[in-house]
């Protein structure tokens, strides 16, 4: 449950480029030059001795961030589906605050592919896949074959994310979804293990 929430928080902050919370900072770009070969994302020297950070293809521009925030502001959810997300969004600063873990769960599984649809298709596809992965994992019935297939899929999805994001994005929380299908295989449906009914309010 918290794996999903933390994963969502990390993805959302890095794509919306929230100042102070994004993992795509100057140090991350320096590490990127050290460990990866992605010339287009490395820091570039300006004439006056300062370094400039090129815009990455996984972040939204300022106008797109405003559009996403306005879209969330106008969202109307069915009764009891999630809390009122319009209260959480700050359109001026382009950030979201005070989301409960169940709101993150709803956003991750249903709204993420729509919210980030202005990204280019090769960046958006892994987001849609990770969204469907969590949706499948939280479904009301699971069978052994589908769990084994999800276990194969999540490995490739995480690898696709690694081609997009810098190394500093991948802490232990981004590693744990790999083991979630195995735990569902042993422990059963997530409804009986994840405490959304109690964490929701």
């Amino acid at each position, binding site marked *: *449950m*918290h*794996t999903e929430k*933390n994963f969502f928080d990390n993805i959302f902050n890095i794509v919306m480029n929230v100042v102070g919370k994004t993992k795509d900072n100057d*140090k*991350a770009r*320096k*590490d990127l030059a*050290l*460990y*990866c*070969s992605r010339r287009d994302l490395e820091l570039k020297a300006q004439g006056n001795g300062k370094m400039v950070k090129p815009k990455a293809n996984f972040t939204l521009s300022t106008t797109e961030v405003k559009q996403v925030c306005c879209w969330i502001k106008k969202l109307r959810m069915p009764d009891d589906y999630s809390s009122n997300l319009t209260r959480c969004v700050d359109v001026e600063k382009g950030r979201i605050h005070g989301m409960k873990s169940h709101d993150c769960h709803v956003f991750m599984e249903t709204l993420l592919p729509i919210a980030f649809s202005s990204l280019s298709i090769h960046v958006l596809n892994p987001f849609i896949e990770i969204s469907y992965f969590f949706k499948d994992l939280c479904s009301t019935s699971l069978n052994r074959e589908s769990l084994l297939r999800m276990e194969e899929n999540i*490995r*490739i999805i*995480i*690898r696709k994310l*690694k*081609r997009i994001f810098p*190394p*500093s994005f*991948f*802490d*232990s*929380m*981004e*590693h*744990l979804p*790999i*083991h*979630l299908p*195995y*735990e569902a295989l042993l*422990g059963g449906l997530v409804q009986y*293990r*994840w*405490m959304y009914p109690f964490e929701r309010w």
Partner: protein
Amino acid sequence: MWTINDFPTYGMLSGWGTHGKLACPHCMEHHKSFTLNYGCKTCLFDSHRRFLPIDHPFRRNVKAFRKGEVETDGPPPRLTPMQVWRRVKDLPKITESGAKRIDGYGEWHT
């Protein structure tokens, strides 16, 4: 993960410290994490290619992931209940030994 609580609480309940290089309670000592040079944080950037099939093209990709590295290792082994029991049955109690850290701390357990 297993518990209804979050990951740091999982560390307190299970006794497996969920921080640093040995954070993942499944991979344990077979981790592939490293510390970032500038970010100074533990990173599990290259720890997923080992889970792929042995003939997957991502394993031989030297450009898209870590510079110039090819993955040849298989996934970490999954312990059976007997193996887990053999590991933990001889551990001293903290009241008996008095030592806060037993041998191998930070290398194969936390």
